[in-house]
């Protein structure tokens, strides 16, 4: 009883007060900065007429609104000459420092990188989630005593684990329309989602099967002796116990899919890796790999954190 109450009414601790104070400071600074930033037009007007006029049609401009600051970059595409201005806290600054320039570059790449990261995350989460759902049925099918279920499920798992994911992706995106144009999947994301889901389902099914079979026979026998049905035994006794054992390998699968998601660049879907390469090529710079890798690591760290929490939650009884 006491335990439950504790969970609901978070005790007011020193830690909580510090967190609240930090949040309050950050929030108010954001609000003040957002209110005092110079407008895009103000920042834009600082770009020298020289640069604009000398480049003529070869003039390219990027303007970014980051909430707390505005940034404008003008570029003469012909000779690569750029001018960058940042407007922050009521002031507009020209970026011409050798140390500040790389940061300005990263700032200007960010929208494209985050867009790619969004695709990567979306693909990973949707395909792993739906894949896990499918995998439960595949795993139960593979250990079923009925050959009509066991056979197709085993074959499915064997096929999708035994052939390259990239080939499966190509088959779905490029191959299907060749069989019948009506089967063409126009949406690249959808094609990638289907390939990744089918593939993940096979891998996770194998994880789940091993998890279920690692539960001692005695658990099945006790359930049977008490009159529980097969469905009840699985859902109340076996699967909840396997979940804790499944979490580490499933977390691993999550991270594998996150990284395999870079394969979608092969069907010209712009994920984080694809975006990174595009920027690297067009600006001939290697610098862009640093923020890209940091984004990957942040996503991985967040996944790890969530799975560690889940693991703790599911091991209360040990």
């Amino acid at each position, binding site marked *: 009883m006491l335990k439950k109450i504790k969970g609901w009414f978070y005790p007011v601790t020193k830690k909580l007060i510090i967190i609240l104070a930090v949040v309050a400071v950050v929030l108010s600074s954001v609000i003040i900065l957002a209110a005092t930033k110079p407008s895009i037009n103000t920042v834009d007007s600082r770009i020298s007429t020289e640069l604009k006029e000398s480049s003529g049609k070869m003039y390219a401009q990027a303007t970014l609104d980051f909430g707390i600051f505005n940034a404008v970059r003008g570029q003469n595409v012909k000779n690569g000459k750029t001018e960058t201005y940042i407007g922050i806290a009521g002031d507009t600054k020209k970026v011409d420092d050798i140390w500040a320039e790389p940061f300005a570059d990263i700032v200007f790449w960010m929208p494209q990188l985050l867009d790619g990261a969004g695709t990567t995350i979306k693909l990973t989460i949707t395909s792993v989630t739906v894949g896990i759902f499918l995998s439960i049925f595949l795993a139960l099918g593979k250990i079923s005593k009925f050959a009509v279920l066991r056979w197709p499920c085993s074959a499915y798992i064997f096929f999708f684990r035994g052939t390259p994911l990239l080939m499966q992706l190509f088959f779905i995106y490029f191959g299907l329309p060749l069989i019948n144009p009506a089967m063409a999947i126009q949406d690249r994301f959808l094609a990638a989602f289907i390939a990744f889901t089918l593939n993940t389902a096979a891998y996770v099914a194998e994880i789940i099967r091993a998890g279920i079979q690692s539960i*001692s026979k*005695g*658990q099945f*026998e*006790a359930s*049977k*002796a*008490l*009159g*529980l049905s097969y469905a*009840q035994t699985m859902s*109340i*006794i076996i699967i*909840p*116990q396997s979940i804790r054992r499944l979490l580490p390998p499933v977390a691993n699968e999550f991270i594998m899919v996150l990284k395999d998601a870079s394969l979608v660049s092969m069907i010209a879907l712009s994920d984080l890796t694809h975006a990174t390469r595009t920027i690297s090529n067009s600006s001939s710079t290697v610098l862009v790999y640093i923020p890209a890798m940091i984004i990957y690591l942040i996503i991985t760290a967040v996944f790890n954190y969530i799975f560690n929490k889940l693991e703790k939650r599911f091991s*209360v*009884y*040990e």
Partner: protein
Amino acid sequence: MSLIRTEKVCKSFGSLRVLKNVDMHVDEGEVVCIIGPSGAGKSTFLRSLNQLETINSGKIFIDEELFLHREHNATVEKISPEKYKSLLLEMGMVFQSFNLFPHKTVLQNVTLAPINVKKVSKADAEKKAHEVINMVGLGDKINQYPSQLSGGQQQRVAIARALAMEPKIMLFDEPTSALDPELVGEVLGVMKKLAESGMTMLVVTHEMAFARDVADRVLFMADGGIAEEGSPDVLFKNPKNPRTQQFLARVLNRD
């Protein structure tokens, strides 16, 4: 009236014949102990009764009603699923290795089957659970997980879990064999108390003292059949079958 009766029960694992025409019965209120050497088929027999093993041939009657009739490895007389389930639930089983559900508390272990199988309300199931958990002397452990209990306590919870289903007969397969010697007594104590309350019990055991003190009848099983049976007084003091004599000489000397 016999609660369990078997006729010519046979069971093989591949070419190994483990049970050979076993005929036996347990009457209402009776405590029957099965003793015998390792590999005799005692566990297999007990597990055949509540369908953890499927027999090749023979008949099993529960509460004087036909529960199972198989010949040549096929069920001959089919009974309705409802009847099958209700007869199955007349037997409660306690395993050598407890087999508690580790992710459920003591209370949840005990209420799980009544709620999910018998569809008893949660309140009624918990009321019954408190009763049986108190009976095995673990009223103070009700919200603990099995891993927090000693082996003896876990086995007592397993007994409570079976009792909560209100079976007419309790099957025990060497309930104390997995326990440290100092924990055996508390489990046997609970079983003795249960016997005194009038519960019908069929107990496979290596605890000869328990069989002698508590059993109404002792079956000596050897080589897939019941080689000898009788009251504990007769069987332990005056065994007729040479195999019984041999077995008793061995186990009683060891004690």
